[in-house]
């Protein structure tokens, strides 16, 4: 079988919070492993904005002369054209997580499941509360994925008229912002049964705010994405408020890079779409989602 040389570029958002740090970590893991093979070269670029990522794509093509690209677009719509340009130059493109608005610009798509990211906690909480209770929600940075998650969450809750979403505000996937928002939720609502913090970083801030206010009405805090420390808490059962989580591991990037590199080396194609499901994490399966070396 033909053994091609592979010059692969990886373009991902910069490590501005834990999840993104996980991406960087997994990308470097994949690079380490793949580059044991002298025929494979991996170049990783991180961007702190859509235009910067578009610039990096140009530079990867023009100067680094990549033949394959794995990209987690900073933003779906904004990167669609730049990726199209890359593909037009004959580069094989795998898109991860945030799909392009025009799928013809990609060769393969490996994704997390943002709908499940909102649906799984909604269903869990509905069941946990027996269809009755008050929930407050903390959303991420205003983005398409945040919208997908929120929509999935509220869609489930429509079926549970006894559950009331008191309010949902943006905690921006940030511990500090989540802390403040939660403090004010606690001031404002005297009866809260459950909190959905759509990211574990935010769940962290929420827990601190609850602790400080010494509030006993809240029975559960549901985070998201399966951050290392939260999975650990779950495993140890060390915080009664943390009972479940939903997986959304940055490790899918690692899979995507490896799959792409190996397939390219063999001259094969990837399946057009691979979905890495988001599943419920509980004390039972927690250890499968625990990666102590990753920053996430």
């Amino acid at each position, binding site marked *: 079988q033909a053994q091609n040389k592979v010059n692969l570029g990886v373009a991902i958002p910069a*490590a*501005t*919070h*834990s999840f*993104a*740090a*996980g991406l*960087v*970590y997994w990308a470097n893991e994949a690079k380490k492993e793949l580059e044991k093979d002298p025929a494979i070269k991996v170049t990783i670029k991180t961007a702190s904005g859509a235009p910067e990522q578009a610039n990096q794509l140009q530079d990867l093509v023009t100067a680094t002369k990549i033949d394959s690209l794995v990209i987690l677009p900073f933003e779906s719509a904004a990167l669609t054209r730049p990726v199209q340009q890359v593909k037009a130059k004959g580069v094989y493109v795998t898109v991860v997580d945030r799909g392009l608005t025009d799928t013809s610009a990609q060769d393969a798509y490996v994704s997390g499941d943002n709908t499940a990211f909102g649906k799984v906690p909604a269903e869990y909480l509905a069941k946990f509360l027996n269809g009755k209770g008050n929930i407050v929600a903390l*959303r991420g940075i*205003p983005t398409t994925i945040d919208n997908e998650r929120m929509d999935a969450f509220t869609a489930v809750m429509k079926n549970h008229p006894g559950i009331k979403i008191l*309010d*949902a*505000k*943006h905690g921006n996937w*940030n*511990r*500090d912002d989540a*802390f*403040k*928002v939660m*403090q*004010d*939720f606690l*001031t*404002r609502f005297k009866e809260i049964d459950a909190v959905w913090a759509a990211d574990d*970083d935010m769940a*962290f*801030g929420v827990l*601190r705010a609850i602790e*400080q206010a010494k509030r006993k009405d809240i029975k559960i805090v549901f985070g998201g994405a399966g951050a290392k*420390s939260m999975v650990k808490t779950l495993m140890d059962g060390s915080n009664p408020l943390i009972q479940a989580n939903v997986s959304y591991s940055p490790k899918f990037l690692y899979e995507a890079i490896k799959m792409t590199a190996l397939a390219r080396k063999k001259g094969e194609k990837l399946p057009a779409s691979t979905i890495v499901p988001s599943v419920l994490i509980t004390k039972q399966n927690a250890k499968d989602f625990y990666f102590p070396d990753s*920053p*996430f």
Partner: protein
Amino acid sequence: MPPERTEPIAAAPPSASPRWRLPSFGPLLGLVLLCVVGTWLNSEFATLPNALNVLTRTAFIGIIAVGMCFVIISGGIDLSVGSMAALIAGVTILLMNKLVPLGWPPVALVVVGMATAVLLGALFGLAHGLLITRGRIEPFIVTLGTLGIFRAYLTYFADGGALALDNDLADAYGPVYYGSLLGVPIPVWVFALVAIGGALLLNRTAYGRYVQAIGSNEQVARYAAVDVDRTKVLTYTLLGVCVGIATLLYVPRLGSASPTTGLLWELEAIAAVIVGGTALRGGAGSIGGTVIGAILLSVISNILNLTSIISVYLNAAVQGFVIIAVAFMQRRRP
């Protein structure tokens, strides 16, 4: 010419005594109005716990803003404070965690950590001051540079993720943020002390006088044998110390530091100073105004969190409108 004819020179138009100048009217009025609106929108707003929450979370920015007020009055600027806070938090956490195996009592480690925070702040501020005076580089550029440098190093140390404080340490350190004295949270006390200290320093010491003189007219200050370079270095160092103090209060809150820690604090701190009535061009300003400015900015987002009358997407717009409106109330005379 007959000197006995001299008319006494008429007094200049009544001018407010600047020595203990009250925080100017505009921001105070703005704050009061805002509080009225807040109470009207949600009765929980006017409760003591909420007030203490707001004051406590204002403490970080407020303390930094006090230091920033000096820098701005001296005619300078510091864009790096948010990144500096993040790096100080990160290094402090790393260090404390590293010292755990020594088996010292946690409280001792916490004290070491707190001292480190202040020391680091002072060192970073000193570096700014020296680059600006000896290096003769614009403050804007120096601190734009270190803005990137500080945050990059934190990200590097944290491997892009979060640096979390060891659990036992976090427990020992917690009271510094969560504890109270006479019913008032520790950060509020510290904020008050820093503000009072700042006001005394600015208005009652030669150093404070020199800061104002330099900002008003550097050449005049130089001619008056004010040691301009030394005063500036001190001013940036002082701001660094304020950042250190803010950080040592911040660390116990979440017990962690990440690349998003302190993001945009520089803008908030500068905004607090300017909303508080200090002019960006320097020369004069008030610590009282700065404190009110900082509180005012927190209160806006507190009110937004306590209500849902407006799309969450528009929060920033409301803040923008309020800031402009407050500034309009205290606008300069023609």
